[in-house]
């Protein structure tokens, strides 16, 4: 407890190394202008149109909304399934985060890249993978029903497919873990990797059990990253759409699903707007609580380079620990991906063929919307590159300012940066249509809107991965630099930036992922003629016929490959100066 008190005192000194006020205001203006133009303004426009079409608040359409038990039930389901999914994701991914932080083993980077791929996959494609594994006629059922002894089969109830997960809560939760596992693994694992293992070792030397050393030493240090990552997972599950709609089936609805139904299918804008406001309100409330909590848990950290903290597993127990975690990751995350790739290679004839891949570059019907696969890859990469650039730049500025802002302003601003993640995509998409209609912001049908909208979703990731690290930078380091005569700019450049390098990479990976997977409002706006890989996948899924489905799977496999290569390329930066210090 002593260290914590000391930390509080020292953190107060961060103000010593503050910027000239004018420059600080200018820096604030950059991310705030971005949010104002591409988040608040569109949102305000669609809310005004929905709730006050004649300039006056018209709430008649909302009467009865609050009293309808259906919406109360929807809100309740949205909240508890998100909380439960987050808890399950934590339980599944935390041991792996530890293994990734503390041990070196062969194939680690590749495995880490593979576990991030689920994040970008379209729900339709994931549903196909799950069906081929866990469906009525899926592998698991086939294996269980192939038990040789007929009496045993009958006894266990395996004479008919024992696993039937179509449209159940179980498959919703499973899919949420599948999608968000990587957030915990990367954010917590990345932070953990830089924690000084000697602290825990010291506790052990002093007689603490491994469990107690973890509970009383590591966990408190880990808490900022742990809570930040859980928060992101929660928000993703809170606004879950495709998983609920497609895997969960018609009996489950989150607020996001209901907003979509009201806005798109029923065109009932007032109700959609009211539900959006409720959703944003929940996000804001959660964020305010989190910001208060975070203020209390931040401690100055002794961060260490990864080469020092990670080593090869030595004892048999350690090898088992690594082995079990790696096996679990492969079963949960990699096997479904492989089953997709396998299906894209099987054309119904015996053996495998690349027929569907070859077909991708043939414009058999001379369609005007045909896109050669390489062009789709290029388009996706252009948008992803722009998103990474924008999100990192804005995220660095925002996180750095927020870390210095301990007062009321910081408590208010921090939640604001997270709001886009908890905002219905269709609401924002419709907001763009209404708001961005006039020059100079006439972006409704411009390709520029795509990376801008992706950045809104990517920004919270960058800010959340950076903040715990920036806040944890030991004030002594900065003070030492100051005493030696460095300017604030130079302190930032030579002290802060190298230390946050690892967190910056985590942010970059997520920004890249968000854009490749086409998250956010762009799904709901008119698309310019620059089709990306997900757009092409949807085009194939839109018509019957084996070739179309095969090509959708082939394109999905390409998307997975591009994604994995992208991650490995981004991770290469680690070997530069930036990731290590």
């Amino acid at each position, binding site marked *: 407890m002593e260290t914590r008190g000391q930390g509080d005192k020292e953190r107060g000194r961060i103000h010593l190394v503050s910027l000239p006020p004018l420059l600080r205001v200018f820096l604030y203006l950059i991310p705030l202008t971005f949010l104002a133009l591409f988040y608040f303004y569109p949102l305000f426009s669609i809310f005004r149109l929905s709730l006050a079409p004649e300039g006056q608040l018209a709430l008649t359409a909302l009467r009865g909304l609050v009293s309808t038990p259906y919406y109360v039930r929807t809100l309740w389901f949205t909240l508890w399934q998100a909380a439960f999914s987050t808890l399950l994701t934590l339980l599944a991914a935390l041991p792996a985060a530890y293994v990734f932080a503390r041990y070196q083993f062969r194939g680690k980077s590749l495995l880490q890249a593979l576990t991030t791929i689920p994040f970008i996959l379209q729900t339709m494609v994931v549903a196909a993978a799950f069906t081929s594994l866990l*469906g009525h006629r899926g592998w698991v059922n086939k294996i269980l029903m192939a038990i040789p002894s007929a009496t045993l089969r009958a006894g266990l109830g395996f004479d008919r497919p024992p696993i039937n997960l179509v449209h159940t809560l179980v498959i919703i939760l499973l899919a949420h873990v599948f999608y968000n596992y990587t957030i915990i693994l990367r954010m917590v694992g990345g932070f953990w990797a830089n924690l000084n293992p000697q602290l825990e070792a010291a506790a052990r030397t002093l007689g603490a059990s491994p469990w107690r050393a973890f509970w009383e030493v590591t966990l408190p240090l880990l808490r900022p990253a742990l809570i930040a990552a859980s928060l992101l997972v929660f928000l993703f599950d809170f606004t879950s759409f495709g998983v609920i709609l497609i895997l969960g089936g018609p009996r489950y609805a989150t607020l996001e699903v209901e907003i979509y139904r009201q806005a798109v299918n029923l065109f009932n804008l007032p109700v959609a707007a009211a539900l959006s406001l409720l959703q944003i309100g929940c996000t804001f409330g959660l964020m305010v609580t989190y910001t208060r909590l975070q203020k209390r848990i931040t401690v100055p950290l002794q961060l260490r380079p990864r080469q020092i903290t990670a080593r090869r597993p030595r004892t048999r127990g350690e090898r088992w620990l690594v082995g079990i975690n790696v096996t679990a990751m492969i079963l949960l995350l990699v096997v479904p991906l492989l089953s997709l790739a396998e299906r894209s290679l099987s054309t119904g004839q015996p053996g495998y063929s690349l027929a569907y891949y070859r077909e991708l570059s043939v414009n058999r019907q001379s369609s005007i919307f045909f896109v050669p696969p390489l062009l789709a890859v290029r388009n996706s990469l252009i948008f992803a590159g722009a998103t990474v650039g924008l999100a990192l730049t804005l995220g660095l500025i925002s996180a750095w300012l927020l870390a210095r802002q301990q007062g009321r302003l910081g408590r208010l601003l921090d939640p604001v940066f997270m709001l886009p993640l908890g905002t219905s995509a269709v609401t924002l998409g419709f907001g763009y249509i209404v708001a961005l209609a006039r020059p100079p912001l*006439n972006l409704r049908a*411009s390709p520029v809107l795509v990376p*801008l909208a992706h950045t809104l979703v990517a920004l919270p990731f960058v800010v959340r991965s950076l903040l715990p690290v920036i806040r944890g930078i030991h004030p002594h380091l900065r003070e030492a630099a100051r005493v030696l005569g460095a300017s604030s700019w130079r302190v930032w450049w030579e002290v802060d930036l190298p230390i946050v390098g690892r967190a910056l990479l985590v942010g970059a990976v997520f920004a890249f992922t968000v854009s490749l997977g086409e998250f956010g409002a762009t799904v709901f706006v008119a698309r310019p003629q620059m089709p990306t890989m997900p757009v092409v996948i949807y085009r194939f899924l839109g018509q019957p*016929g084996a070739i179309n489905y095969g090509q959708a799977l082939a394109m999905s496999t390409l998307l997975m490959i591009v994604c994995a290569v992208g991650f490995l390329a981004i991770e290469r930066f680690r070997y530069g100066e930036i990731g290590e210090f």
Partner: protein
Amino acid sequence: MKRTTLFFLILVLLMAASCGPRPTPAPTPTPSGPRTLTVMTHDSFDASEEVIAQFEAETGATVKFLKSGDTGAALNQAILSKGAPLADVFYGVDNTFFSRAIQADIFEPYASPVLADIPSELELDPQHRLSPVDFGDVCLNYDKAWFQEKGRTPPATLDDLTKPEMKGLLVVENPATSSPGLSFLVATVGHFGEDGYRDFWAELRDNDVLVTAGWEDAYWGQFSAASDGDRPIVVSYATSPAAEVYFSEGKYTEPPTGNVLGDGACFRQIEFVGILKGTPNRDLAEKWIDFMLSPTFQEDIPLHMWVFPANPQAELPEVFQFAEVPSKPARVSPEDIDQNRERWIEAWTETVLH
């Protein structure tokens, strides 16, 4: 430090690149110089390069397409951009959304001379704000191999679906989230009437009907003929069996799936095109509508969108011999659909899901 500098430089450059050159926004209001016609449409729209090139050669204009989601999402965006239209023309309003489009008052009347060739039963707007382009029937498809293997008879009418031997065989789309789902619900209202459709759906529910959010997850996720799913009957289109042959790379010479064409079992969707109010390119937009209704474009429709051209002069491709046409599709007027859609969906949800 060099690497750091480089990394940062790349960041800044990327940012500059993403903010830098902005493509010229909005169609140019001046009729001189190179002109662009913007067509807003749904994601299922498709056409041949040559056909579009022919229009561009005839008019000297460039055609740009804005795909904007499914029919509902695209139409809603068109309505939201009323006053500052995103495009000159909108294609893809169907008869289930017809009244919403007309009431929103986003289309300008235009009586194309080609309308004389189009059967009058497809025309729903006497003021010609929306002109019919194509039609297709939402029907039940069944997996022929499945029924053959089990030695069972596939359903022929809607009533067959409630028989005990059909238990657990049908997958339908949720009318609240899917266009074919809504069409099938409307078909059942048309066939069984206001008094009978809820009983029919209650029987389907007891017969273990499976409901999915959209066509994709029904067809690619649950339909036994196209996926690992175990449902041999699905709500799809009457042309789907023909598409299965066409997209099989010669594997099938006749469809692996069949249609249930019994009386009132199908619902006819008609798709329309209209000129958006406030377009600065009214003359081009008129030419585009004439072009869409002309045999050149109409003959291009079947293989790209798997629906029937509205203009009977258009010749059908060979594979459309497998695209059956129901003799008696359910008939429900757009006004009826618009007035009752929400009530029907609510009643359906109450009956089937609760």
